[in-house]
Structure formats: structure tokens, C-alpha cells
């Protein structure tokens, strides 16, 4: 199955930009996502249900395309971490914003991933994408061998190469910048997540307070008592609306800036990985060059071949990487801008709403006898 997929490259039969993850179903420990995509041919949609295994399958295939020159130069759209139904503290930390709520943020992130893949010039040609989006049979239910992951784990041993001096100033600059940005973005994302979590706690606390106030209501004809009961009920309403307000503030945070920062953070990681892959290739190439120089005449030709192959591969990678980086930079800024603007607008709306509510309650209290 894998073979046939790999060989075939064709145009995607669906639009990449409006793929949607419309629903998520929880079945025991696994989550099943309903993915909807519109056909290019005209009317009609594909509705498929996919699990995280299928997503992993897709990723495998993307990583292991062998006929794409400079594949290692591609910044692969980052796939969200595996969702865990019973989110532990550790799992929560890994998932970050995506672990919040009823998986809506996760769906959003998955949707973004699929859109990125389906819109990517190099990746969308892969048959696996088509299958993933359109086939009614879930493709990824059997385990596949993890080429690129193996390669990556092997690459871990070569971590020292990370500090390897680049031949290209552009890439050297990119690598330095990426290193800083990865740290900063990650940090900002985590801090922002803490803010959101605290906001949720406040919302919950407001809710409890509001509920407890209802218990203070005393029955009876006594006007003083009734007055106090009215105050309690009203205050309970106030807190309920404060709770809602805080909830929507937190939700706004998650849906806009939260997801934006999360995506940014994961993309930075993906870029880092790409740059690292390129650096590894660079090291490989340099080794090949050295061995070609030192090689005895008998092996000289073979070594030259290896060197040439490596050179051309490295060139491919570098070319693709340059494009990818340029693409990433513009998309990244745009994405962050959208996140910020959306965030700001939503929060503004929420703040105005709650100001109105406070005003109303204030009038109500003032009017209270």
C-alpha cells in the first residue's frame, strides 16, 4: 500500500484552504475527528473520520517521500501532539492550549495542520494526502515503519552538529534567530497558557461563589430578610455574569492568541528541525568532500560520486529551505497579526459587554430599596 502511494503523485481533488475538522467523537481512549473538505470538481464534500493514528500515517508518508528533491528543506507543518483523553498534568503540559476545553482548540490546530499540508506546494502532491482526505477507509490503522523518526532519533546522537558552523551566512543567521525565537515563543506560550488557566479558575470560583450565594436566600415575609435575599440573588447574578465574562475572556485568549502562539511555537520547532536536518546534510557533505580529497585513486571516483550526490542534495535542500523560510516568515507574521487583531477585537467586545452588564447591575442595586 505504501509503495503505490509513494509512486503516485497527482493533483489534490479537494480544496486545501477550507478543510474543516467539524466534529470530534470520543470513543473510549481514542478521539475520532470528522474531516470535511470540498471537492475541486464542484459541489459535494468529502466527509471522513480519522483518528490520530491516521494523522501519524499521513505524517510518515510526508516525511518519507523519496522522489522529492530537497525534501529535508521543507518545513513540515507541525502536527499537534497526540491527544490524550484523560489529560494528565504531563500530557497537559505537552498539549498546552490544545488540551483545553472539549478539544475544540485541538480540532482547530488539526485543521490548520491539514490546511497547511494541503496547501503546501511540495506536500499536497503526495497521494497520501489525497487518501487521507478522501478515502472512506481509514488508512493508518496498521503500523508503519518510521523512517524519518528513526532517522531523527539517530540524528539525536548528532546533536553536537547543531553548533556546526554554517557555510551560508543566511542560514547561520536563521539558525541563531530560530534558536532565540523558539525559546521566547515557547516561554510566551506557556505563560499565556498559565494566564488562561488562571482565568478559568477565576471563572470557576465565581461560579461557586454565585451558587453559594443562592444558599443564603432566606424564605420569609420579613421585609429585611427579603431585602437581603434579593441582594444575594442579585449578587449571585452578578457573579454568574462575571463568570461568563471571565470564561469568554479565557476562550478568546485560547482561540486567538493562544492558538496563534501555539502554532507559532510549533512552527518554530519545525523550522528548527528543518534547519537541523540541513545542518546534518551539510556535515555529511563536508565529510564526503574530505573523504573524496583524501581518497585513494581507486576509490576516488566513487567518492567523487558520493560527494557530488551530496552536493546536489544539499543544494536542493538549501534552495527549498530558503523558499520555505521566506514563505514561513510571511505566513508567520500574517498569522500572528490575525491572532492579535482577532484577540483584541474579541476581548474588546467582551469587555464592552461586561461593562454593560456591570452598569445594568449597578443600576439595579442602586434602585434597590
Amino acid at each position, binding site marked *: 500500500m505504501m509503495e503505490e502511494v509513494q509512486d503516485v503523485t497527482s493533483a489534490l481533488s479537494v480544496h486545501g484552504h477550507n478543510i474543516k475538522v467539524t466534529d470530534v467523537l470520543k470513543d473510549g481512549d481514542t478521539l475520532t475527528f470528522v474531516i470535511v473538505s470540498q471537492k475541486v470538481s464542484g459541489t459535494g464534500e468529502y466527509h471522513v473520520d480519522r483518528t490520530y493514528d491516521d494523522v501519524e500515517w499521513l505524517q510518515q508518508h510526508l516525511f518519507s517521500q523519496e522522489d522529492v528533491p530537497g525534501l529535508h528543506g521543507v518545513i513540515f507543518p507541525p502536527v499537534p501532539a497526540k491527544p490524550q483523553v484523560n489529560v494528565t498534568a504531563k500530557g497537559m503540559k505537552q498539549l498546552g492550549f490544545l488540551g483545553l476545553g472539549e478539544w475544540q482548540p485541538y480540532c482547530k490546530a488539526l485543521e490548520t495542520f491539514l490546511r497547511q499540508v494541503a496547501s503546501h506546494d511540495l506536500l499536497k502532491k503526495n497521494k497520501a494526502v489525497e487518501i487521507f482526505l478522501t478515502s472512506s477507509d481509514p488508512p493508518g490503522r496498521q503500523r508503519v515503519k518510521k523512517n524519518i523518526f528513526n532517522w531523527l532519533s539517530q540524528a539525536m546522537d548528532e546533536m553536537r552538529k547543531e553548533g556546526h558552523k554554517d557555510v551560508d551566512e543566511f542560514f547561520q543567521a536563521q539558525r541563531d534567530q530560530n534558536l532565540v525565537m523558539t525559546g521566547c515563543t515557547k516561554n510566551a506560550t506557556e505563560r499565556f497558557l498559565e494566564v488562561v488557566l488562571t482565568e478559568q*479558575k477565576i471563572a470557576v470560583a465565581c461560579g*461557586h461563589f454565585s451558587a453559594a450565594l443562592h444558599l443564603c436566600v432566606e424564605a420569609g415575609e420579613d421585609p429585611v430578610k427579603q431585602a*437581603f435575599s434579593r441582594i444575594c440573588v442579585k449578587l449571585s447574578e452578578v457573579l454568574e455574569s462575571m463568570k461568563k465574562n471571565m470564561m469568554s475572556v479565557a476562550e478568546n485568549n485560547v482561540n486567538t492568541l493562544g492558538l496563534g502562539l501555539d502554532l507559532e511555537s510549533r512552527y518554530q520547532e519545525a523550522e528548527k528541525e528543518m534547519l537541523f536536518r540541513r545542518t546534518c546534510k551539510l556535515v555529511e557533505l563536508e565529510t564526503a568532500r574530505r573523504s573524496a580529497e583524501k581518497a585513494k585513486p581507486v576509490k576516488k571516483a566513487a567518492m567523487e560520486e558520493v560527494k557530488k550526490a551530496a552536493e546536489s542534495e544539499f543544494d536542493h535542500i538549501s534552495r527549498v529551505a530558503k523558499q520555505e523560510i521566506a514563505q514561513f516568515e510571511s505566513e508567520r507574521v500574517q498569522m500572528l497579526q490575525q491572532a492579535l*487583531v482577532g484577540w483584541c477585537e474579541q476581548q474588546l467586545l467582551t*469587555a464592552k459587554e461586561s461593562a454593560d452588564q456591570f452598569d445594568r447591575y449597578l443600576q439595579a442595586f442602586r434602585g434597590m430599596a
Partner: protein
Amino acid sequence: MASSSERSPPPFPDSEDQDVLDSEEVGGRESDEDDGEDLFMSTSEQPLTEMDTTLPSATQPSDVLMSSPLDIMSDPLIEPFSSPVENKSAGEVVSEPSDDFVDLTNNVTEPAADGVTTEANDSAAISSDDFFDILGSESEALREEVVVVDDNAEAAAAAGKSEVTGSVTDPPGTGKQEVKETSTAAVVDISGDSSASDTQQPSGIDKIVNPLVDLLSDAPPSADAKKPSRAAMDLFEDEGSDLFAEPRQTKSAKQPQKSLFGEPDEDLFGEPLGAAKKKSINKEHKDKSVTIKAAAVNNAGPLQEPADLFSEEAVTTAPTKSNTSTVQSKTNGVHSEEEADIFAAEATVELSLDSPRSERKKKKEEEEADKPSASAPSLSVAASLAKTQPAALEELEEEDEEEQEDTFDIFVSVKDPEKIGDGMNAYMAYKVSTQTTLAMFRNKTFTVRRRFSDFLGLYEKLCEKHGPNGFIVPPPPEKNLLGMTKMKVGKEDSSSTDFVERRRGALERYLQRIVNHPSLLQDPDVREFLEREELPRAVSTQALSGAGFLKMINKATDAVSKMTIKMNESDVWFEEKLQEVESADQQFRKLHALVESLVVHRKELSVNTASFAKSTAMLGSAEDNTALSRALSQLAELEDKMEQLHQDQATNDTFSFAELIADYIRLLGSVRASFDHRMKAWQRWQDAQTMLQKKRETEAKLLWANKPDKLQLAKEEIAEWEAKVTQYERDFERVSTTVRKEVLRFEKEKARNFKLRIITYLESQLQSQQQLIKYWEAFLPEAKAIA
């Protein structure tokens, strides 16, 4: 404090219960009631039937009973004589009863001197013996304390005495004289003590005079009423002037008292007794004693207004005795008040209620005399209680109007917490500033410096004085060892500043609540606390932290509730209220925990926002894209502002809800304490009733066994206990009324307080939201400008 509740049985010098016959117990109750009625009847209709031996004892309870028929007779006369103008004549008439007093005192001296208590023909002897014991022991206790005024007092006493004894026909033996002197010395001592030690004390006279008054009321049967003697008058006048003139000169703090008593005095005794005019402070007490005396001798001078006042009271209480059922008695109690109202003299109520009050005090003193170690401090408490009583009652009358006004022209602020000293001896001092236009204060604004223990000391003083009367005394914040230790160690972190600020606010609200309370505001200690430059160090609070104090209250509460668990609450209102208070306490505690967690989260949010702001700033500086970098820096600034906003909200939550609710948890404790005090009053009343029952049974048995001499004694005891029962019942009714009013006031205040606080809270919430909107609106163009 708890000790007063664990009342030891009052001393019965001749408790001859040993001959109690069990077989008669069933019938005892019935016969008691009959007896009671018989007594009342006999006093009016056939007072002389049992003349030989029983008359004295039958008239023994005459302070109540004797006058009841009188009242009936003089009913038409009540109105004219309740008008203050008539008081002069009353003053004249007083001279008549006064010789009763003389006689009485003579009588008193006799039994006391030779220690004989069973003289059948001396009616006053037995009961007065009681009093004598009390007075004697008191005087001893007091004398040790008050050496300063002793001279003065004794001189006055001696003068009065000698006159008295001189005019009396009975040959005054030296021994008698001595004893008599001790008794009067006791009187004067106490008053002298009062002048010397404290402002509350003067009322001591009230308490002491009353026992004497009781004696006086016993007097008529045995007295030769026709003998005119100014001596007793003199005695009283001397007392009055010495006592009250002197403190007035020396003590500036006298003034509050004047205002306390000034008004009723003028109402009732507009021109009382001519020369006594000067002694306006305690004139009333003296007058009262005269009054009661008059009541006692009513048969001699029936046209006495004070007597009417008194007998008026007696009327209502007399039936109470005949009906032992609580419900009935309750209605009676209410009735008596109403009647008093009808007579339109505030002071009437005051008077009628005051006398039993002081009587109770006297009883208390009996107990305390038994425990000499406790006598000194608690005596002063008792004295102060007796004094504040009339004021409190008066206040109750006026309270409704005052409450409706709701404008207390006094504002207290607590500012500038300052750590004084170093190490573990350090303490916090606060500036207490008062702004007022009330005439009772010398200045419009004044500031004093007080330390925390002073606040606690004030609370304890107020509690001791007003607690037993059923007032809800607003409690100060508890001592907080942890917070204070932090302060002492000198850690200037956010939690300690938070602690200081919280406490400052709590103290301010505590004081404001006190001055908002119409009765507490009148308390001299409150004014002293607000006005006086240097306050004597509150010592007891050092060992007794607020929390410990509350714990003690709770312990006492538990003990009391256990003790009176069988209290068959006949008043549904109280039953319901108590339950409400209990559940409100639970709910407030829950709310408090919830608000505290909300505050914790708010603070957390503020901290997290700050760190997000920091990381955003870093991200912004790392960012290559200039527009994005700029926007991120702006965002960092925005988040910094938001941090402040969140912090403000946390503070707002704290002070609007957490502290308010904490206040009310403490206040509910005070409410419960007031319920407990009511229960104690009830318990005392019940105990007295039980005792009365026993005495009656004893009497019945004695009657059966035909032991006339002992019977005499028993009858006297019965009379004594009947009086006590009446007084305790009235005490209970009064405390009940006070508690009721206080609880209603508390609830009203609660609703008002919460409403105001919520409005302030919403205002600040609205403000912060509007601020937030501004922030967002400022940021939006920055975000849009990125691309």
C-alpha cells in the same frame, strides 16, 4: 466571664431545707400558687389577720406586694403624680418614710450585731441580715480598694448615722452603732469607690441603695411610722452629694454620665428635693430610693407619685407570680412595659426596670462576696452595668427613631499603621481620627494613637458591660500570630502589607460599627478611646488574643447551651432566629472560603499576567519583523497595565467581599453571644423559680409540722425569692427585648452594608472594565498595523 454564668447559689443564711418532706412535693406546687395568691390577697384585704407571727413575713415581700394594693387604691392618683411638678411634694413626703428607714436600720443593726437571725417579731431582721452580710463583706472588699475616699465617705456616713441614731428612740448600743456604720460605710464606700476609681462606679450607689430600699420596704409593719426624722433623708442626701458632687469635680469623665441620667432626671424629677438639685448626676438614684421607700410606707403617705411608679410596676409583677406559667408571665412582662409607656414617662420604665436591675446586681454581689478574689474587678463591672442599664433602656425606646434616621454624624478612620519597637516586642499602632459634629464630643475632629491591644481592650470592656444586656457588640479582628510575627520579623513582603492593610480596614469598620450603635456610642469607654490622648494600657488582652477570646466565648457558649439545652423556648421567634444565625454562620464561612480562593486566583492571575508581559517583551525584542516587534512591545505594556488591573480587582474582591464576610462571621459570633446571654438570664430566672418552689415546699412542710419560728424564716425566704423571680423574669424579658431589637438592627445593617458594599464593588468593576476597554482600543490599531 464564664464564672458569672456559673452562678453559685445565692447565700441563704437559713436554708432550712433539711426538713423537706418528700411526700408533699406533688401538692407543693399547687399550694405554692395558692399561697402566692393568698399572699397578695392578704396584703390588701386582711393584712393583719396573721399578725402575731406571720404578718411580718407576709409583708416581707412588701417591696412588691405591699404596694400592689396601694396601687390599686391610688390608681386614680397616678396620673397627676407622675407629672414631674409634683416631685417637690414627694420630697416632703419622703421625710416621713425616711424614719422608717431609720427604724429599719436600727432593726438591722440589732440582728447583725448579735448575729441573731430568727427574731420573730423583727420583720426586717432576717432579710436585712442577708443584706447585711452582703454589705458587710462588700464594704470590706471595697474598703481595701478604696482608701482614698474612705475618709470622706465615712465621715459622711458617720454624720448621717449619728443623726439617724440620735433621732431614733431605740437606744443605740455601741456595737450596733458600729455595725450600722459598716453598713452605711459600705454604701458610701461603694459610692466613694466609684468616685475614686472610675466613671462607672457611681452607679454603685444605686445597687447598694436598693438593698437598703428593700429593707425599707420591710419596715412599715414594725416601724412607728409617725416619727418624723430628717436624719435618713440627710443620710441619703449626704450620700448623694458627697458621692456625686465629688466625682463630678474631679472627674471629667463624669460628663457622659450626666448626659445619661440628665434627661430622665429632668423629666421625672424636674425639681427634686430642692437642695438635691446639684446632684443631678445620680439624683435619680437617690430619688428612686426615696421613691421605693415611699412605696413601702405608702400606707402612711398614700399620695406619693414615686410610690405609684413603683407600685405600678408591682401590679404587673404581682400577677406574674401567681401565674407560674411562662407564657402568661411573658405577656405580663410586656404588659408592664406598655403600661409604663402609657404613663408616658420614659423614666418610669427606667425606674421600674432599674430597680430590679440593681437588685440583681446586688445578688450578683452576694455571689461575689462569696468569692472575694473576684469581687474587686467584677464589682466594678457590675456597677458599670447597673449604670449603663438605664441608659440602655432609654436607648431602646429611642432606637427605632434613631435607626430610621440612619445618619450618624460621626466618622472614624484608622490610618497610618506604624510598627513601633523592634523584635518580638514590636507592635502596630494606628492613628484613630474622628470626625463628628455630635455635641457630646469636645472637638469636631480629633486624632489619637492606639495600638492593637487597645482595640481589643475596648471590645472587652464593651462586652463586659453590654454583653449581658443582650447587646451585640461588634468584635474587632482577631489577633493573628502569623501575620504579626511576620511584621515583627520585619519581612516587608506583599503578604505582610496585605495583612496590615486588611487589619487596618477591619479596625476601621469595627470602630465605625461601634459608633454607629446608638447605645455603644454613649459608652464613656468608647469616647475615651476616641478622645483621650493617653489610654491606660489594656493589660488583659496581651495574654488573651482575639482568637483565644472568641474561643473562650465559644467554649462558654457550648457550656451554656449544654446547660440550658432543656430550655423550652417558648418564643418561636428566638428559636427561628437562632437557627438562622447558625445557618448564616455556616453559609458565611463557606462564602468566605470561596471568596478567599477567588482572591487567590485573582492574585495568581496578576502574577501570571506580569510574567506573560515579561515574556512578551522578550519575544518582541527577539522578533525580526519590525512591525511585529513593535506590536509585541506594545502588548507587553498592555499586559503590564492589565496586571495592575487584576491586582486592583483582587484587592477589590478582598475588601468588598472577603473582609465584609469575615466581619459578619465575627458579628454572627456576637449575635450568638447575645442569644447566650438571654439564655443565661432565662436560666437564672428558672433557677430562682425552682428555688422559690423549694422554699414554698419547705414552708408547707413547716406549716404541717407546726414550727412557727422556722415558718417565719421560710416565709421571709419565700418573699425574697419571689422578688428575685420577678426581677429575674423581668431581666429576662428585658434582655429578650434587647436581643430582639439588636438582631433586627443587625439584620437591617447587614442588608444595608452588603448593598452599599456591592454597589461600591460594581462601581469599581465597571471602572476597571472601562479601563480595559480603553487599553484594548489603544492596542487594536497597533495590531492592525503589523502586516
